[in-house]
């Protein structure tokens, strides 16, 4: 089957949009966190697609970097979520709005 870049990019865009909407509308911190991961992976998908389409491996190398950073970010993010829960006994971020004027 012929390689169809458009399909991959559409999938990537859809995944990314789902991630964005998830970050913006969901209230649970863990779900938001997962949505961020979803956005990252949507980007990874488009990077891999372009890499394959252009026959240039640097896109794939980039994906490894993104994965690494995502792993690190996951560790930090989960740690924040845990300490947040210990302090506030909730993960509803509407209730975690103390950083303001």
């Amino acid at each position, binding site marked *: 089957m012929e390689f169809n870049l458009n399909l991959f990019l559409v999938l990537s865009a859809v995944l990314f949009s789902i991630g964005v909407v998830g970050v913006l509308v969901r209230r649970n911190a863990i779900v938001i966190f997962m949505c961020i991961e979803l956005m990252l992976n949507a980007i990874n998908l488009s990077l891999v697609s372009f890499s394959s389409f252009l026959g240039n491996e640097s896109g794939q190398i980039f994906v490894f970097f993104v994965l690494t950073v995502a792993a690190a970010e996951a560790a930090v993010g989960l740690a924040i979520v845990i300490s947040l829960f210990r302090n506030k006994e909730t993960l509803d971020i509407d209730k975690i709005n103390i950083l*303001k004027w």
Partner: protein
Amino acid sequence: MQNYFILIVVLPLIGFLINSLLGKKLNSEKLSGWLSSLLVFVPFLIGVYSLFELLKLPPESRTIVYKYFSWISAGSFNLDYSFVLDPLSLVMILVVTGIGFLIHVYSIGYMHGDKGYASFFAYMNLFIFAMLHLVLADNFLLIFLGWEGVGLCSYLLIGFWYEKKFTGEAAKKAFVVNRIGDFGFMIAMFLIFANFGNLNISTFAGSIAGFSVNSPLLVAIALLFFLGATGKSAQIPLFVWLPDAMAGPTPVSALIHAATMVTAGIYLIARTSLLYALAPIAGNVILIIGIATAIMSATIALKQNDIKKILAYSTISQLGFLFIAIGTQSYVAAVFHLVTHAFFKALMFLGSGSVIHGMHEEQDIRRMGGLKSKMKITYITFLMGAIAISGIPPFSGFFSKDEILYKTFTNAGILPYLLVLITAAFTAFYMFRLVGITFFGKPRYDSHVHPHESPSTMTVPLMILAVLSVFGGFIGLPHIFGYNILEHWLEPVFANSYSVIQTWRPESVHAVSTEIILIVVSVVVAATSIFISFRRYSKQESFEEVRGFGKILENKYYLDEVYDKTVVEPIFKTSDGFLWKIFDVKIIDGIVNGVATFTSRISFDWKKLQTGVIQDYGTFAVAGVIIIILYFLFV
């Protein structure tokens, strides 16, 4: 020669550093005092050596410029840190370091037991350092550096005994009044820079050589420099700081406020003599101010009772004489009197210090009397100084003062001459009033005071200065008596100026008969004055309240009060009532507070955007991204 000449300023600097940084640790009066004296004596030797070096050269080429490094360099503007050694600066070096050394030695005895001993010598060395910059500099900015440096040292040393309130105030007064003069100096420098693009003195002299006489620019520069000189050299209207400066230790009064620093104004004008040769109008202003200052302060000195105040007003009066000489374009006479005055006035200040020391810090001459048997050396040396300043031949002051009188007569006319002659008579009068009341008559001090002669560190400098005061005049003998060494020595420095002066004032015929008549007149006047004064005051027993005009003189023409009312109080009132309470509080603070209030009002509504909910921020960011994307897609 180049290599070691810099030591002349480096050594005093080392003395300053050692005494200021390590003085407390060393904690040895002997070491501090003798070290800093030595570090002034060696520059004196360098000066003497330079004298012989200069003598080897033919008279026209006796100008050596030592360039050490490029100080400021910006585009076409270039200033070097360089010294100029010529007959004029050499005279000043010898006076500053020579008398400076004697006064340092004197201070070893005088300051004995003072808790600020080391810092006193540190300041003194710093003063020598700055003063040598002033006299050696070959550009105006370096002169200004020295000028401000000596001003700083003067401030520090006037306020040396800072625990007393009035010394601090005297120091502040000296500093503030001098700032007014410095303003004139700076504007003059700015004018020179704006018009000639250079601050080097010899270049400046070269570029003004073609100007016509009395061109406005030169007159302006000359008058502004003179304003600077009135500050430093205590002339009307800026003389008021000098009498108060007597609050400092007496060696300071001798070194800074009699012999060296106060002559900086004269030196500056002598250094730029070509400028003044081209600006006779400025010369006339200087002459008038000089005469007014001389006569005013001489009359004040007639009725003062503080031994140092009398000498202070005498100094102002003698500085007035120097400006009279400058105003009549007799630069050599000015330098000559500068040197002899440095001798006898330093001598008398040190002598008064010795008296004050022996009398346990008593300065009021009404409570002295009969000291001549108690303090023989001080008495004799002081008497030498008094005779010298009064102008009795063959003492040094006679020759220098007589030259000024003669030049005033030939260059300025009969009226200025008479005024100067009267001032000279007053000088002799107040000096012998001082001598008579202090050293003669019956003792009037309390019985528990036992006046004693000072230690030899103090009396030896007195004796050396006394010798100089007696014989120092032979460097400038009048023509009728012989060869005038100083005039020939300084001839190359002032040659250009004198040839310019001859273009607008024909050389007066040198009449020997006139000179003899003038000499006889001045000697007779001085001797009569001494006689009257001495006969009246050496036996004076009681001192009644002075009345009438004497009261005005005793209160210095109420000039301090007048200045207070006309200058100080208005400034104070405007500062307090308007600048502070209205301008600062209402306008400056009003603007600042207004901006703050305005910002906080506006932010009151807009700060609500910051909800603290992270999803709101995310929404804004995404909305922004979408808007940008839409912009690129459709616009």
